[in-house]
């Protein structure tokens, strides 16, 4: 649950603009190449030199993966309450208001229906920029309703995760969203509707320990951080430095918990091919 500290850095391509004046240029955090935004966008938001995958939000994924103008958002208006009246340095309700204003998003996931190469799908995509992509009651409910949509129309479910885990400010209620989303996925399995889970940088904590690991196929983006405990906590526990590449997609694939690492530019066709194979 180390999303809070990490959310300070590298949330969105914008955060790398620092010394580049007009906001049109990005510096690749991996190879330091200076890239124009258009260059990046044309290259699926990955570095033209080293293929580093920049963190992007739901809006970008919708553009990249779904057929043009095919996406219709559902349950857009669901918003977080403040059931615990949680206060740390500021009130949770205030944090929510400010984040909504800043990100133009209502919570950490966008859900809806759309088409992938002509195939109708129920599509959910998380936004790491919204309080570290943390899962609280809203994320749980929107996934739950997305699964209902998938069940009703018998269309495959796709969820793209980008999340530091459960949202602390909703205490045990956010923990229960692990149970809620997993329980709902059993209904989908019973109806033999395919569920494709895509794990992007980062997917950790309660999100990994629930719906993100339960795909009929689990796909990772290259070099994404995927794990349960955050690297800092693990390092503290074992008192040693972590090996190179620990908790990357490639590492998780090697240990048998992902089916494939797929580059963003191949993702759309890969998904539609998979759906066709199991349909």
């Amino acid at each position: 649950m180390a999303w809070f500290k990490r959310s300070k850095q590298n949330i969105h391509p914008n955060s790398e603009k620092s010394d580049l004046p007009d906001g049109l240029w990005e510096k690749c955090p991996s190879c330091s190449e200076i890239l124009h935004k258009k260059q990046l966008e044309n290259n699926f938001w990955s570095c033209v030199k080293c293929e580093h995958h920049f963190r992007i939000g739901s809006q970008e994924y919708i553009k990249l993966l779904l057929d043009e103008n095919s996406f219709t958002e559902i349950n857009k208006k669901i918003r977080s309450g403040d059931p615990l009246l949680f206060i740390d340095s500021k009130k949770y309700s205030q944090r929510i208001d400010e984040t909504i204003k800043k990100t133009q998003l209502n919570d950490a996931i966008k859900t809806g229906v759309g088409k992938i190469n002509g195939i109708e799908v129920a599509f959910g995509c998380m936004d790491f920029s919204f309080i570290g992509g943390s899962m609280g009651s809203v994320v749980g409910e929107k996934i739950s309703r997305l699964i209902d949509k998938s069940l009703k129309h018998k269309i495959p479910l796709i969820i793209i995760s980008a999340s530091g885990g459960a949202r602390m400010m909703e205490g045990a209620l956010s923990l229960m969203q692990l149970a809620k989303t997993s329980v709902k996925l059993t209904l989908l399995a019973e109806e033999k509707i395919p569920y494709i889970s895509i794990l992007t940088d980062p997917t950790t904590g309660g999100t990994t320990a629930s719906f993100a690991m339960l795909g009929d196929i689990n796909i990772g983006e290259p070099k994404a951080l995927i794990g349960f405990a955050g690297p800092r906590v693990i390092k503290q526990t074992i008192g040693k430095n972590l090996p190179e590449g620990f908790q990357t997609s490639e590492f998780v694939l090697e240990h048998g918990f992902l089916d494939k690492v797929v580059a963003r530019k191949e993702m759309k066709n890969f998904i539609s091919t998979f759906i066709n194979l199991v349909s």
Partner: protein
Amino acid sequence: MAKTILDFEKPIIELEEKLSEMKKLSDNLNIDNEIKIIEEKVQHLKENIYKNLTRWQRVQLARHPERPYTLDYIYLMTQDFIELHGDRNFKDDKAVVGGFAKIDEYKVMIIGQQKGRDTKSNLHRNFGMMNPEGYRKALRLMKLAEKFNKPVITLLDTPGAYPGLEAEERGQAEAIARNLFEMAKLKVPIIVVIIGEGASGGALGIGLGDRILMLENSWYSVISPESCSSILWRSWEFKEQAAEALKLTAEDLIKLKIIDRIVQEPFGGAHKDHNAMALILKNVIKEELSLLIKTKPEKLIQNRVKKFSELGVYEE
């Protein structure tokens, strides 16, 4: 029996010590009246403290090193316990114990997280922190219970799933997720009891069921107060505030419908009287079992899905 004294219990202990000194002197001095006054004072103080526990104080009680653990409950509540070991894949995780047993007329599968009481046993039990093979062991036992149509009882008492390097390699997240998925559709009743610490996904990994019970002085949340403090307050020092903010007690969680029932503890906490605590819990479990075993499996699963689907608070 209490060898460990919690900070907020100190005034009681001091007064009790004074009382016993006075009692020693009472043969020679005529101070019966004064003794009576102190006795009343002790009683008053106890009630005042134990009936107004803060959330952080309950966390302290939940972690009390003399509190009954899973194996204590198994020995005190059940008969004919046969412990089963291993996940049939990697190894036997000692942080979780389980097996078939009888609770009087009920034959059950009982599974729980197990802490140690000293350094040696804590190392053996990994402080009650399960590894992936622990979750898979628990799932194997639950499937066995399903096969023989026996209800499952799980006892939650963990500071969290083990955040180790090998745990990640062996898929800690997948193991927990798989348990949630499988427990959702298990065809036998599942009763979950939070007996001590219910820390996050590590606890929930064996904590999905038809009835969620919680001991009066246990805690259950998405994160420990200390970790919450270190992340949100950037310091370990705000654990009391974090405990308040997280609303992690049984009283809090029954209001949010996350638990179904609070199990009373003996006065002053479960550690004061293991026998009494085990008897209370045994009777509660028997009562719950008598109702659950009447429900058909399909209905049981349907209710379970509904129960967890409805959890959450949001605005629309």
